[in-house]
């Protein structure tokens, strides 16, 4: 873990943090649109076949990270905050995915 970024903080914030309210509104509308698409494709499971799940999960991740990066400012904020959050997120995904995986190998 490095704290080298500390000095840069003030500077960075000054540059990017002022997303205008309008851009936030635009992002929110985009997210609403993605949600609509998600719902729509959930009615087309059979048509989409193998594409369905990756597509749906992809859209979910786009929404997820949009909120994290922009609404929660993680993109512009100090790297230390990202580290704290992604450490937890990454561990959670890795560990629980592995756990669910073990249930599949069960048998002798």
């Amino acid at each position, binding site marked *: 873990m490095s704290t080298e970024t500390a*000095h840069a903080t003030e500077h960075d914030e000054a540059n990017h943090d002022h997303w205008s309210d309008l851009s936030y509104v635009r992002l929110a509308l985009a*997210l609403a649109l993605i*949600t609509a698409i998600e719902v729509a494709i959930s009615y087309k499971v059979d048509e989409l076949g193998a594409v369905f799940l990756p597509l749906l999960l992809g859209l979910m991740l786009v929404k997820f990270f949009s909120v994290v990066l922009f609404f929660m400012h993680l993109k512009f904020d100090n790297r230390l905050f990202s580290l704290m959050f992604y450490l937890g997120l990454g561990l959670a995904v890795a560990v629980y995915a592995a756990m669910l995986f073990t249930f599949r190998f069960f048998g002798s």
Partner: protein
Amino acid sequence: MADTAVHDAVAEHDDHGHATSTGLSNNKLAMWLFLGSECLLFGGLISTYMLYRGRHTANLGPDQVWDIPFTSASSFVLLMSSLTMVLAVTAAKRKDDRNTNLWLTVTAILGSLFVAGQVYEFTSFYREGLGYTTSLFSSSFYTLTGFHGVHVSIGVIMLLATVGMILKNRIPGDKAEVVELVGLYWHFVDIVWILIFTLVYLIPA
């Protein structure tokens, strides 16, 4: 040699300020740590649901009880509350108390609407026969969404308390930061719902 391995990052330490070694706010750091920890909490609940989603009584599985249009609407409400929240934060940074309070209140209302929707959803599922203990599916579904609902409710209380404290001018320290912290929590609750909505509702059983 150790001493030179990492760049010395300690900021100038003035005598009376709030300077911290990294220049970051204690509170914000704590909030992000807490959210990192919450990932493992919700991860556990989501995994439990994923493991048990298929284990239900004949006619009371996800496909039978879900009301996707309704849930989509309440998801939309929660998503929009993230927007109003972020507007409150920018207002607070501009030291615009009036708009801060306005957007905080709207966020709280949207949040309450979402919780109300969840209560409605639960009761209608219940009427269809899906009780908390009906099946593994129902227990893990109610537990997961219940935990989320409790988080939203706590968020609503925090929002309203913040509004109250801003009105009475009782916030110790940095007002904008308090709003920002509440915002982080609120957005986190929103992203958890983004996961739940897709993983729980939209993926067919």
